[in-house]
């Protein structure tokens, strides 16, 4: 009977593939965490714009002020973040990156603003009694 000789698995050569898979998954996880997160301290806004000089969040909660809520750069993770205490309800928002309006890359929902752009929406649920 003919015997098939399989080559021994070159595990050392497969490690770049495993690493690539790991990085892809990590990137997907990072992308999904870009949505505003409701925390006990408030809503945590996050934006990945490592090359930006200034990032602010403007929305229905601050009269669309493009300068009152500026995000801080988390140098290690190259992300801009800010926690804003918001009352329960729906809040429309956009980011202002170096003076330019940017639709959030991730949000609970999106709504046309009537001026040719889309606002992101974050929902703050009412506190359970």
């Amino acid at each position: 009977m003919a015997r098939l000789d399989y080559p021994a698995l070159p595990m050392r050569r497969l490690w770049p593939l495993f690493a690539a898979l790991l990085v892809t998954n990590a990137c997907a996880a990072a992308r999904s965490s870009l949505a505003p997160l409701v925390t006990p301290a408030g809503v945590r806004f996050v934006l990945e714009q490592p090359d930006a000089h200034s990032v602010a969040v403007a929305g229905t909660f601050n009269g669309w002020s493009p300068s009152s809520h500026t995000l801080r750069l988390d140098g290690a993770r190259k992300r801009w973040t800010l926690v804003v205490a918001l009352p329960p309800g729906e809040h429309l928002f956009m980011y202002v990156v170096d003076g330019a309006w940017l639709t959030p890359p991730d949000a609970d929902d999106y709504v046309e603003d009537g001026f040719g752009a889309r606002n992101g929406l974050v929902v703050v649920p009412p506190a359970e009694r």
Partner: protein
Amino acid sequence: MNTCGRMRAAWLASLCLAAGGLLPGAARAAAQPPVAPADRDAIVRLAAERGVTVEDAETLLRPLDEAGAKGLPVAPLANKVREGLVKGADPRRIDTVVRQMAGHLGAADALLREMNLSAPPGRDEPVVLLADALSGGVTSNEVRELRRQAQTAGTTPLASDSLAGAAKGLALIKSASLPPADATAVMVEAVRHGYRSHEMLELGRQVKRHERDYRDGIASLRGLREAIARGERPDQLFAGGRPPTVERPAEARPDPAVERPTRPARPETPERPARPERPERPQTPDRPEAGRAR
């Protein structure tokens, strides 16, 4: 008191009564002050910063004053004007958008009054939410139908909050291009089971998020309605990130009590012949060290 004095007192009393009759309407209108002077100044200042003329700024403020005079919420309109100005939109475009919004607020207010569901004074949420639903594509007739069905199905009277929440939920489901009649049935079931306004919004939003599943038939609005009817709470409906699927009717399901016919025994598989032993691999010669030093 002489006759003349009595007559004057009676006239004054009737005047007071007449004024009292007009009070509820007056109070409603007075509950919504026109744009506060500080807000007005802020908008005019912002407009000037953006190169908008004083006349154009006054034009932008007009629908706000008109809405305030009708007793409609003014804050969302003022916010829209500010949004348009800071985003650098054309004042005529801002005016159009704000007038549309004011129109929806007026229609929502009229609809709630028609149904005797006016929001308590000082509470704008139901009007704002219902106006949002109307701007999201729900028609006044659909809101009336929603109310009619919810009223028939429910035991407690429908509150303005619930109706507005259900209407907004309906708008969200409609935006996923799903049949309005089925969407209405889902919302009526939610109202009947005491879902709160924000829970109905979340329900609509979840359906919108799973739009493809509903369109492809993986999930159905009938299944969702059945799940609500079974008493599932909003946080259970989409647990694990998946929409509820259609429950098969009991008659279509196999009865677990009925014994299944026993499977015929599998024929015995013939024994495999034992593998021949691998021959010993020849020793690989040691790799030269120079090849590794990188």
